[in-house]
């Protein structure tokens, strides 16, 4: 059961560290169930912007609203029951097992001293099975490969039962097979998804809309074929690219050169 509808609204969000403005005046809206791809070159502010959604970065200006509520005026646990974040990695200083890590996703749903119930264990089991982590369940998280860790972090976000899933470059440790399957998987969850992605073609294949960030500002936002134009790619990524149509899927298709 998910709390809320997963509607996301950023209104004039800026985030500055000292004098440097990493994200500047970003406004966008994501409808419930929609999948938005966040694109942009390295250092464009993708991760910084995502952090304002899951309450890691407090915007220096503007508001972030989930289900119509400002996330900074709600307790952290309230946000964690609605927003699941799949981070790039997690430090492995302690010998936490994969099951320990996945089980952490339930924390925001638990009252003080409330033990893990049969229901919690069923959710954890299901998430572990869905991400094919059964074989690693009792292994130490830090001994897994990058791709396996990433899957464990997806499972952790799923047991939060979020209505909005935020993914920060979820495919960067994965081979092409797992990239495709992960994106297909989150797409089919039917909840709102905001994902920072590097691969333009994958983004075009799976996302309803794309938002391109450049130097902390929105350079373009809209459907993939409206956004991924040779002009924009040359302006933002400084590459020359040809844009065509995917022969089978009919989605927009980018090839350098």
């Amino acid at each position, binding site marked *: 059961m998910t709390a809320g509808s997963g509607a996301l609204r950023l209104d004039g969000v800026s985030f500055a560290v000292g004098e440097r403005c990493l994200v500047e005046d970003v406004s966008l809206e994501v409808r419930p169930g929609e999948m938005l791809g966040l694109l942009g070159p390295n250092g464009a502010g993708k991760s910084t912007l995502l952090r304002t959604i899951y309450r890691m970065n407090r915007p220096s200006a503007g508001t972030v609203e989930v289900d119509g509520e400002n996330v900074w005026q709600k307790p*952290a646990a309230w946000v964690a029951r609605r927003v699941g974040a799949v981070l790039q990695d997690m430090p492995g200083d302690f010998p936490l097992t994969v099951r320990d890590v996945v089980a952490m996703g339930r924390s925001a749903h638990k009252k003080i001293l409330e033990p893990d119930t049969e*229901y919690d264990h069923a959710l954890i089991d*299901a998430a572990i099975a869905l991400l094919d982590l059964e074989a690693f369940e009792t292994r130490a998280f830090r001994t897994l490969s990058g791709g396996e860790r990433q899957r464990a972090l997806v499972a952790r976000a799923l047991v939060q039962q979020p209505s909005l899933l935020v993914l920060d470059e979820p495919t960067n440790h994965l081979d092409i097979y797992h990239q495709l399957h992960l994106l297909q998987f989150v797409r089919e969850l039917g909840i709102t998804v905001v994902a920072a992605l590097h691969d333009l073609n994958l983004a075009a294949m799976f996302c309803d809309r794309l938002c391109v960030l450049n130097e902390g500002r929105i350079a373009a936002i809209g459907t993939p074929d409206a956004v991924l134009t040779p002009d924009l790619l040359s302006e933002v990524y400084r590459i020359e690219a040809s844009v065509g149509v995917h022969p089978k899927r009919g989605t927009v298709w980018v090839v350098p050169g």
Partner: protein
Amino acid sequence: MHGSVPDPQKSREALLAILQSAPPAPVERRLPGWAVLKRRTGLARGAGGYGLVILLMAAFLLLLLSIAGLMFGSVHIEAGTAVSILLNAVTGDWLISPTWREVHETIILQTRVPRVLLAGCVGATLAVTGMTIQAIVRNPLAGPSILGVSSGAATGAVIVMRWGLLGLGAFTLHISAFLGALATLGIVFWVARTGGQMTPTRLVLAGIAMSSVLSALTSLLVLTSPDPQLASRVLFWTLGGFGSAQWKLLPLPAIALLAGLVIALLQARRLNLLMAGDESAVALGLDVHRFRQAMFVLAAALTGITVSVAGVIGFVGLIMPHIVRFMVGADHRRALPAVALMGASFTIGADLVARTIISPLELPVGIITALVGGPFFIWLLRRDAKGQGSAK
């Protein structure tokens, strides 16, 4: 998700349905069966599922060491006699009639029982504190003594003694030890975090630097003091010991242990989140800054109280959490009770060695824990270095 699985869609829908299901309506409360209890307490899971067995074994070890602690010393008393005296004192004459010499009863009840209890309380508190500190600084190489927190508490206590400041009544010493510990922990954390990221190396180095400064400060205070007795009294704080154990000294450390353990257990889930790093903890719904501050105060209070009653006893808070995590896993809900038992066993054992090895003289117990803990710490560093070398 995996290529080798022939049918990745096997029960995808069913699994997704489980994930999206609503929690069951609260059912009528009844006593859960053993299987449910085992699962709910997490005892059936992790670290091979031997959580409860290990806990019982740790409790048994503590019992054995406590009895040994009553038996040995300058006067040897048989285990049977020691236990009989204890039972007699608790239940009265109707169960066991006294057949022992009165001097033995006095030794057991007035010297050794309080001593074993004090050692147990202090050891358990140090171990719980160590485990908490390791979680809040997200560094398994941390501990109250490594980070200089114990030295800070000792310096706080010495300042009070040096100038005889007793303005706050009977608890002045404890309060100043707490303040010393809190200030040190704050400074070490602040230094290690400068520049955003906090690395284990910076943290440990900051702790070592603070320890050096604080022990120099303590020496300075002692050497410039007009009171010639101060040096010998301060030595007690720098090496630690339970020689001063008396019944009237016990309530404070006992309350500290109970309160500390209960608070840490109440926050066990949140402590777990801290192990996953700040960003994960925030994403999972923890107000990291506020929680960490609260836990800092707890850790400093516990360290301050143990130091003010037993001096600086190093390495207990560092090594016990490692041994316990190896046995029952890192989940604080299981690890905290186990670490309290193991910490108590360790200091009772160390105290036993300290007062029997050159009997009738006594060694400060801090020497024993350092002799055991120092090499263990070095071994941990070696193992970590190797692990990182192969992982990257």
